[in-house]
C-alpha cells in the first residue's frame, strides 16, 4: 500500500537554525502515526510543511503521492488540520464557523449542511449550534476545531498537539473522539509532548528532538528496545542519595543503566529484589516505584532529559 506521507531527508531552516534537520518517515493509510517530542523538537514545522503552509528547505515530502512543493491546493483539499491554536472565527457562530470553512473547500451547500450536522453530532456539540465561540469551554473549542477539520471529508487528519492546555476530562473526551475517527478508518498524524497521549492513541510513532528523529516504531517496540521491561524510579532524600546510587551501581549488571533527572533516580535493568533493597534504604514505599517502562523512559534513555520539563 502506498504511504500517505513520505518524507526523506526533510529539512526546514529558519536562517541558521534548523527546526527540522533531515528526517525520514512514512505514514501508512489507516494508521495513527505520532510525533512525540518536547517543545522545539520540530513537530509543528513538520506539520506545517505537510499542510503546505510552510515551504520545505530541502529533502522530499510527498502527501498522498503529491509533491508538496507543487501541489499545495490539491494536498490542502485532502487534509484536515487541527492547529495548536484554536483559530476559530470569533465573529461567527459555531455552525457558521463550519459553514464558512466548508465554503473554502468548495463543498456544495447541501453536502456542507449534512456534514455540519454530522460533525456537530459526532463532537457532541449539537446543542451549541448557535452559540458564540467565546461561550464555549476549551474542550468544546477543540472539538469544534476537530469537526471543522472534517468538513472536507479528509484523506488524512493532522492534529498538532490536540490536547495541550485542556483539563484531564476534556482531554479524555478528545482522545475518545480521535479513537472514534480511527475506527472509521481516518488516517491520523498527530504531534504531542505527552507520552500517555502517544501511548494511548498511536499505532506507530517517532520520537523527535532538536529537529531530528531519534527512534521510530510501535510504542511497545520502542519501550522494549530502548527502556526494557521495567524501571525502578526512586525519589530519595538528599542524605539517602549517595547510598542509593552506590547500591544501584554495584547491583546493576552490564545491561543496566542509571539516569538522574532533578532529584529522581531512574534505574533500568533492575529486578524485584533490588527494588525491595532500595525501598529499605529509602524507608518510604511511596518514594520507590518499580513499574513498567513507558515512552517517557524511552525519551529519557535517548536524550538523558525529561520529555516535559
Amino acid at each position, binding site marked *: 500500500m502506498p504511504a500517505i506521507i513520505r518524507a526523506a531527508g526533510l529539512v526546514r531552516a*529558519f536562517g541558521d537554525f534548523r527546526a527540522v534537520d533531515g528526517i525520514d518517515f512514512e505514514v501508512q493509510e489507516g494508521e495513527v502515526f505520532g510525533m512525540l517530542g518536547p517543545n522545539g523538537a520540530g513537530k509543528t514545522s513538520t506539520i506545517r510543511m505537510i*499542510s*503546505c*503552509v*510552510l*515551504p520545505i528547505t530541502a529533502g522530499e515530502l510527498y502527501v498522498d503521492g503529491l509533491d508538496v*512543493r*507543487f501541489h*499545495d*491546493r*490539491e494536498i*490542502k*483539499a485532502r*487534509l484536515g*488540520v487541527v*492547529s495548536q*491554536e*484554536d*483559530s*476559530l*472565527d*470569533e*465573529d*461567527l457562530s459555531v455552525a*457558521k464557523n463550519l459553514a*464558512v*470553512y466548508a*465554503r*473554502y*473547500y*468548495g463543498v456544495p451547500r447541501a453536502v456542507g449542511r449534512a456534514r455540519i450536522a454530522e460533525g456537530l453530532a459526532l463532537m457532541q456539540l449539537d446543542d451549541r449550534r448557535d452559540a458564540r465561540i467565546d461561550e464555549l469551554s476549551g474542550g468544546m473549542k477543540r472539538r469544534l476545531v476537530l469537526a*471543522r477539520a472534517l468538513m*472536507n471529508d479528509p484523506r488524512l487528519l493532522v492534529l498538532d498537539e490536540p490536547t495541550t492546555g485542556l483539563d484531564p476530562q476534556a482531554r479524555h473526551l478528545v482522545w475518545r473522539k480521535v479513537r472514534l475517527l480511527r475506527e472509521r478508518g481516518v488516517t491520523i498524524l498527530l504531534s504531542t509532548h505527552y507520552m500517555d497521549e502517544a501511548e494511548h492513541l498511536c499505532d506507530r510513532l517517532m520520537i523527535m528532538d532538536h529537529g531530528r528523529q531519534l527512534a521510530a516504531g510501535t510504542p511497545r517496540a520502542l519501550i522494549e528496545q530502548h527502556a526494557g521491561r521495567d524501571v525502578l524510579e526512586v525519589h530519595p532524600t538528599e542524605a539517602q542519595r549517595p547510598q542509593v546510587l552506590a547500591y544501584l551501581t554495584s547491583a546493576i549488571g552490564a545491561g543496566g543503566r542509571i539516569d538522574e533527572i532533578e532529584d529522581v533516580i531512574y534505574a533500568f535493568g533492575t529486578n524485584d529484589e533490588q527494588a525491595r533493597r532500595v525501598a529499605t534504604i529509602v524507608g518510604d514505599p511511596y518514594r520507590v516505584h518499580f513499574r513498567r517502562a513507558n515512552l517517557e523512559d524511552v525519551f529519557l534513555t535517548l536524550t538523558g532529559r525529561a520529555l516535559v520539563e
Partner: protein
Amino acid sequence: MTTTTATRPPPPGPRTPVTGSTRRREWGVVPALGVAIPGRQSFTVWQRNCDVFLQLWKAEFIPPLLEPLIMFAALGLGLGTYVQLTGDVEYMEFLGPGVIAMFSMFAAVFEGLWGAYFRLDKHGTYEAILATPTRPEEITAGEILWAASRGAMNAAMILLVMLALTPVYGLVSSPLAILTVPVAFLAGVSFGALGQAYVSQARSVSQLTYFFSLLVMPMFWFSGGFFPLDEFPAWASTAAWFTPLYHAVELNRALVTGNIGWGDMEHLAWLVLVLPPLVWLALWTMRRRIVG
C-alpha cells in the same frame, strides 16, 4: 475499422509532462513577480468578511450615516457660514464630494488595517484559512477587495444622506454622482493594498496608529476636501497629487457637480494606474509575512 484511431501509437515528441512549466511553479508563484496570481478563492475570503459584516450590519450601518451628518452640521452649517469661496459656491456644496471620499477612505482603512491585523495576528483567521485550499495571495486579494467594498458601501450611504439633504442644501446636482460609489471602490483598493502591506510589517497594534497619523490624517486634511489647494504652496499641492484621496476628492467633485471634463480623466487614470504596483506590493509583503 473503428478502432484505428484508438490503437494509433502516440505521436512522437519529448516525454516531458504535458502540463508544462506552469505546473512546476511552487505554490503558483510566478518567478518574475515573486507572488502567485490570486484565483477565485479570493472571493471566498471576501465572502467570509461579508458574512461577519452582515451579522452585525445594524451596528455597522449607523456610523456611516451619523458621521457625515455630524460633519455637515459642524463644518457645513457651523464653520461654513464664515467661509467665503470664490464663485457662488456654498461651503456645504464644496464639502459634500470630499466627505464621500474621506469617509470611504476611513471605512476602507479601518477594515484593511485593524480588521486585517487582528485576523492575521490575534485571531488566527489567516492561519485557519491557509489550511484550506487557499493561498496567501488570495487572502490578501480578498482582504483588499473587502476593504474596497466597505469604502464603496460607505460612499453609497453618504450619497443617500446627501440626496436626502439636497432639497434644502443643493448638495447633489448631477446624476453622475452615483459614480462616486465606484470611485470609492477604486480608491478603496489602493487603501486596502496599502493597509495589507503595512499590516504585514506591523508587530503590534500600536504600530497601526502610525499609519493612521502619518498617512491617513494628512490625507484627510490636505486632499482638497475641506478647502481648495490652489492657495497652498506648490509643494503641498504636489504632495497631495501623490495621494489616492486627492484624486478621489477631485473626481467626486466633478461627478457630484456635473462639471466634468476630459481633464478629470487624469484623476481616474491615476487611481487605476497606481493599483498594479500597490497590489503587487501588498501581495508580496503579505506573502513574505505569512509564508516566511
